[in-house]
């Protein structure tokens, strides 16, 4: 309750209320998040259950077009699945992978950045060299290569079975240096301040100082970074799936839906690509706009990139 009261008076909420772009992108994002959480309830059909769809319905156009069917509001995809339901499940998959990948890389990056910044010396030089080297290679290339290697190592069938956790690892591994650098920079700024000195003087052990005292003070830039990283992760997932290195078509994400639809675009079935594509752009745009707003409000000086 106390935290809520403090939040009610905070500058963040004040500037949020005055920014129409922030309000609208936040509400759109919330709607999308709720839809993806409640996907099994909201979606008209369960697209993971092959008994609910029929190949004979394949490539039905949206209901308002000629040849459309009222049963399928946005038409059907190439396997005869209701496109709207497939998109809702796809959104769910994309969100799970995006958020999962960011949690994974945040954990990895915060640990590395924390140890690197706190202990310094050889450990710092070593860890930051690794981060620098990986940073010099575009993260999408890292993700494409690792997923290609995983796909070869696991074999296609097994890879598709484990696609969600593997993609979380692949995308997380490709983006962690961002966190490590951001956290390290803030730890370097914090670790010589008086409160850390005071904690040390009264004999608190190092682990507690690191995670109970310094960590909370580094979280502002991490929060800003996280919004942008979620958008990047969703975008990477879509790219990987589009290349055939991501989610299989039986459990499609938005990217694999676009990939499947693309093969049929020459025969004029534009809706299979169009609707998932628009949804993907909306998701990413909304998160990016929110991230921009958050950065302006919190204005962490250490944020780069």
């Amino acid at each position, binding site marked *: 309750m106390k935290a809520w009261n403090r939040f009610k008076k905070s500058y963040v909420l004040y500037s949020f209320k005055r920014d129409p772009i922030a309000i609208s992108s936040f509400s759109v994002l919330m709607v999308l998040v709720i839809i993806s959480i409640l996907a099994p309830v909201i979606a008209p059909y369960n697209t993971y259950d092959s008994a609910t769809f029929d190949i004979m319905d394949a490539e039905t156009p949206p209901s308002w077009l000629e040849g459309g069917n009222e049963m399928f509001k946005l038409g059907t995809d190439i396997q005869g699945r209701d496109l709207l339901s497939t998109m809702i499940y796809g959104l769910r998959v994309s969100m799970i992978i995006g958020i999962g990948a960011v949690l994974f890389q945040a954990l990895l990056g915060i640990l590395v950045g924390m140890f690197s910044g706190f202990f310094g010396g050889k450990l710092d030089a070593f860890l930051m060299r690794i981060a620098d080297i990986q940073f010099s290679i575009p993260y*999408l290339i890292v993700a494409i290569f690792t997923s290609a290697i995983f796909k070869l190592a696991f074999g296609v069938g097994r890879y598709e079975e484990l696609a969600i956790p593997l993609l979380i690892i692949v995308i997380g591994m490709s983006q962690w240096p961002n966190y490590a650098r951001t956290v390290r920079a803030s730890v370097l700024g914090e670790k010589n301040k008086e409160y850390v000195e005071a904690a040390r003087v009264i004999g608190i052990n190092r682990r507690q100082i690191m995670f109970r005292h310094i960590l909370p003070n580094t979280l502002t830039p991490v929060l800003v970074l996280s919004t942008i990283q979620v958008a990047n992760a969703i975008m990477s997932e879509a790219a990987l799936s589009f290349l055939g290195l991501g989610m299989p078509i039986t459990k499609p994400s938005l990217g694999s839906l676009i990939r499947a639809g693309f093969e049929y675009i020459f025969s004029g079935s534009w809706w299979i*690509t169009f609707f998932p594509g628009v949804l993907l752009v909306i998701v990413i745009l909304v998160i990016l706009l929110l991230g921009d707003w958050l950065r302006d409000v919190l204005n962490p000086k250490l944020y780069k990139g």
Partner: protein
Amino acid sequence: MFAFIVRRIIQAIIVMLVIGLVGFVIQHQIGDPVRDLVGERVTPAEREVIRDRLGLNDPFYIQYFRFVKNACKGDLGFSFFYKKPALQVIVSKAPATIELVIVTALILIVISIPAGIYSAINPRSWLSRLIMAISTIGVAMPVFLTAIALIYFFGVELNWLPSYGRGETVNIWGWESGLFTFDGLKHLILPSVSLSTIMLPLFIRLVRAEMMEVLETEYIKFAWAKGLHRQRVWYLHAFKNTLLPVITVFGVQLGILFAFTILTETVFQWQGMGFMFLEAVERSDTSLLVAYLVLVGVIFVVVNSAVDIVYGFVNPMVRIAGTK
């Protein structure tokens, strides 16, 4: 300075050895070099003989050492699918990718600089607002969607431009070029335009931001006070100084552009290195995949080290950082 260069080169070598190790492990643990050579129809006994002769039963480090030695000589293994040395396959695909990147870079320069300057000079005009709005949406638009949209409108609906392949090419000293035939140029339009949309928002914003910053500086105010002509102040005095940071970023982003060719080449079935890479993944052509991985690693390491060393010459602070 000498110590700095040596340090950078040692680091580059270590990175290459690690990349080589990854490639080696993939080639020998996931792939099967014997299959790459002789195919599937050989008896196990004969396989064992070949394994022995190739030295595949040697200890790990000896094999790794041999892999590195061969890689230095340019032998990166044998492509199972193409029945050719992997490096030769990659080199034969390189011109397509390089031409795509060059044309994309030209489009980037031709569009982003005027658009950025215009929106910096007239920040309140409706056109610059439009440019900024489009570039915001452009950031959120994955490149394959842009590409598909372009294909749908210009390839399928209007039927103006070809949407896959390279079209007619001419061979100039062993370089398969599409730049000199009308058909080849027509095939280049859609892929390069969609590839350039990845970087356009970034560059327009960059040019705009740099230009606006320069326009606030003292020497520009002095130029105004001197009564110089507007065009002269903008295009001669201000623009010149926005160029330096733009060129720096441009150099860095060229590498990223290279990465994104994998996506555009897939959409347009452009017969370049990225397309070849994905085909190699689908065919489990491990040697080709490893060769591509090592080659991309070499390119990035060499470019980054070169950039660092050049920076070291220009800016002494870089040399000192990371010494202790």
